[in-house]
C-alpha cells in the first residue's frame, strides 16, 4: 500500500514542480504581493494627502499661554506704533 501511495504522491509532486503552472503561480504570488504593496502605498498616500488641512498654524503656537500674551500686549502695541513703517 505504502509503495503505491508513495509512488503516486511522488509522481504528482514531480509533475507539479516541472509544470509551467508553477511559474504561473509564482507570478500570481508576485502579483498579489505587488497588489498588496500598491494598496498599502495607496493608503499611505491617502493619509499624507488628507493630513494638511488647516490647524497647523494654530498648533505651532498652542503652547503659548494667554497670560503671557496679556503681559506682552502693551509692549507689543507700543512696538507696532513705534515701527509704523513695517506694520
Amino acid at each position, binding site marked *: 500500500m505504502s509503495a503505491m501511495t508513495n509512488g503516486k504522491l511522488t509522481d504528482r509532486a514531480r509533475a507539479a514542480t516541472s509544470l509551467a503552472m508553477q511559474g504561473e503561480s509564482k507570478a500570481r504570488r508576485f502579483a498579489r504581493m505587488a497588489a498588496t504593496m500598491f494598496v498599502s502605498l495607496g493608503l499611505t498616500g491617502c493619509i499624507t494627502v488628507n493630513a494638511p488641512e*488647516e490647524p*497647523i*498654524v*494654530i498648533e505651532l503656537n498652542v503652547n*503659548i499661554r*494667554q497670560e503671557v500674551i496679556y503681559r506682552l500686549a502693551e509692549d*507689543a502695541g507700543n512696538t507696532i506704533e513705534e515701527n*509704523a513703517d*513695517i506694520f
Partner: protein
Amino acid sequence: MGDMMTKRISKGLLAGVAIATAIGGLATPAFAQRDPAYAAARSAGQVGEKMDGYLGIVGPSTPELRRLVNDINIKRRAVYAERAKATNATLEEYALTAGCQAILATAPGEKYQAPSGNWETRTSAPPMRDSRCP
C-alpha cells in the same frame, strides 16, 4: 565783508539744519510711514496680517510681493527678537502678541488671517482673532 557774509550764511544754515534735525528726530518715530509699494499692496489686499505676527501674501504670489513681504518680515523679526529679549519672552510669544495687535490695527478693507487659517477682509466689526488675544 565777504567772510562775514559767509559766516552769517553758514550760521543760518547750521541753525536750520539743527532745527530740521530736531524736528525730524522727534517726528521720526511717530511719523515713520509705510513704503508706498507696501501701503498699496496692503490696501489692495495683496498682503495681509497673519496670526503669527508676520505679513503674508494673500492672493497669487509674485516676485515683487515676495521681496516686499520678506523684507518687512525680516525687519519685524529683528524688532520682535529685540523686544522679546527685553521683556523676557520668547520670539514666538512676542510675535504672536504683536500679531494680535497688528490684526486689531488693520483698517477696513485690509486682509488678516482668522483663527481658521483663512484670509478675511477687515470690516468695521472687530476682527476674528485667536481666543488668547487681549
